[in-house]
């Protein structure tokens, strides 16, 4: 197991370096940050009934969405792509390869999530008087909501990545519900402006609670009057995110195991043949 840990950490570091050197992927992550900042810069007015700028609510919401997207869009895409290319099979054929793969991916996802979140908040604070946590309590909330938020979406994303068919279809299948949740979870405008049934549906999913938790960390306490319940409902945030984390782990472990077990040379060839026929993969 020590070999697998060492190899996994080494692998995570190398993948992170590749990511940092890949203009395409870096621009993907940076675009999210830039879009959030640009929209925040154009939004005027205050959260209804408070003195909190609307831009702050929006930035807190985007921060939650960044975590959500890394876990449920980027991670499944990476898993599906690497399954299709044979990375998963090669690691399966290597002693300790699958544990090392999981260690590396965890490292990568956490680094990207923390990196983009820090970048968003830092740039917003420096350039536009953006929101930052108030006092140690606020920082603590930021820390646990981020951690629990990642725990809620990363295993779930891994489970999704284990079952999705191929990278091309995967993106289409994930993006639609993700965008839907972005606009119904109160991330980009106050959730109270949405019809109650929509609010109820959105409150089943983790994004609403991640956004609400981050607002409680980043916005002044007075802003809670704009929340649906009139309070931050932090116990509920913890409960819902924990429930998703448990569900995610329960799904991810057997599904990843199944995905790894199903990999073999002939399945890989068959997928490449199909991909080549559809003209999506060179050679």
């Amino acid at each position, binding site marked *: 197991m020590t*070999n*697998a840990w*060492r*190899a996994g950490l*080494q*692998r995570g570091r*190398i993948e992170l370096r*590749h990511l940092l050197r*890949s203009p395409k992927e870096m621009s993907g992550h940076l675009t999210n940050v830039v879009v959030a900042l640009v929209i925040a810069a154009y939004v005027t007015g205050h959260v209804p009934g408070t003195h909190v700028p609307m831009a702050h609510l929006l930035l807190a919401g985007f921060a939650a969405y960044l975590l959500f997207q890394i876990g449920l869009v980027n991670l499944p895409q990476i898993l599906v792509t*690497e399954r299709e*290319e*044979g*990375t998963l*099979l*090669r690691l*399966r*054929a*290597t*002693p*300790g*390869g699958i544990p*090392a793969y999981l260690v590396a991916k965890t490292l990568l996802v956490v680094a990207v999530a923390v990196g983009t979140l820090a970048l968003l908040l830092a740039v917003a604070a420096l350039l536009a008087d953006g929101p930052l946590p108030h006092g140690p309590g606020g920082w603590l909330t930021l820390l646990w909501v981020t951690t629990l938020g990642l725990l809620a979406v990363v295993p779930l994303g891994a489970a999704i990545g284990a079952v999705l068919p191929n990278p091309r279809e995967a993106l289409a299948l994930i993006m639609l519900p993700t965008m839907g949740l972005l606009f119904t979870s109160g991330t980009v405008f106050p959730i109270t402006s949405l019809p109650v049934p929509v609010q109820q549906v959105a409150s089943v999913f983790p994004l609403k609670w991640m956004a609400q938790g981050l607002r409680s960390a980043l916005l002044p306490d007075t802003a809670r009057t704009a929340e649906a319940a009139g309070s931050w409902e932090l116990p509920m945030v913890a409960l819902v995110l924990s429930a998703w984390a448990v569900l995610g782990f329960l799904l991810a472990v057997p599904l990843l195991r199944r995905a790894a077990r199903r*990999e*073999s*040379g*002939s399945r*890989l*060839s068959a997928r*490449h043949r199909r991909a080549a026929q559809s003209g999506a993969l060179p*050679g």
Partner: protein
Amino acid sequence: MTPGHTPAEPVAQAQPVGPARPVVGTQPVVRARDVTMTYGDLEVLHGVDLDIHRGEIFALLGPNGAGKTTTVEILEGFRRRSAGEVSVLGADPERGDDAWRGRIGLVLQSWRDHRRWRVAELLTHFAAYYPDPRDPAELLALVGLTEQAGRQVERLSGGQRRRLDVALGIVGRPELLFLDEPTTGFDPEARHEFHVLVERLAREEGVTVLLTTHDLMEAERLADRIAMLVGGRIRACGTPTELARQAAARAEVRWTADDGTPRRERAADPSRLVWELHRDANGPIAGLEVRRPTLEDTYLHMLHRETDGTDGTHGTDGTDGTDGTDGTARAA
């Protein structure tokens, strides 16, 4: 991770140069008995038996759909067999642990992974998983990729990529190496170099190699023994010469007759035919050539016999049963 694991060199030194002979009394590296595989109602393997010995290069041949891939994936531990006994390096592949995995090397056809990695970086990383890996720099020299060490994997040519796959397959000093269509897309020179490398691994280091290929020349060039898998059964197994005998493939004798016309004849015993020709001619024979059956002749012969044989059986059944009834019906 594997305290009991030792590099294979000591065994290699004990190996005679030339085709490895099974060492009597030692457990074969791969042993399969009566392995069957069923997908739903479809039986793909009907009782496959195999013995592959240490240091042997063993080729598995057969037409597409004969069950080659299924057989190899069962041995690799990637597929669960329906029935039968399998032992690979002393363990059941279905229960192979990490230590077992570490003793097996795999070179598959379809890998396109780790495109962004650099060649040396990837090889060094995979060395980290094994208890006693080869030196990555030496390995790159061995497969002729030293110049490409700093290149990104996606920028390698097809042949270079395959050689990198081979390097990754042997970085952990495997005792058993699976090669799946290893030289597809190689130019003749790369193919030759690859063959020399595989022979070196088997002869000098005692690595056991299981090769699946469609390239009959390659099988004939490399393999100590060849098994032909047709219709889910091993139909023949042995050295190329033994196979030719089993298939009753005949050597071809060519000569020029007195009237100048080229003649050819197939003979089970070409020596006798040539002797008879000499005796008849009472002197030298113009344009005499004896061609021993190639593996391709043997293979095609065996395949045709297989198909004809099956048809023949059906024909016999038909004559005794259905046709007879039909005949009676027509007569009546």
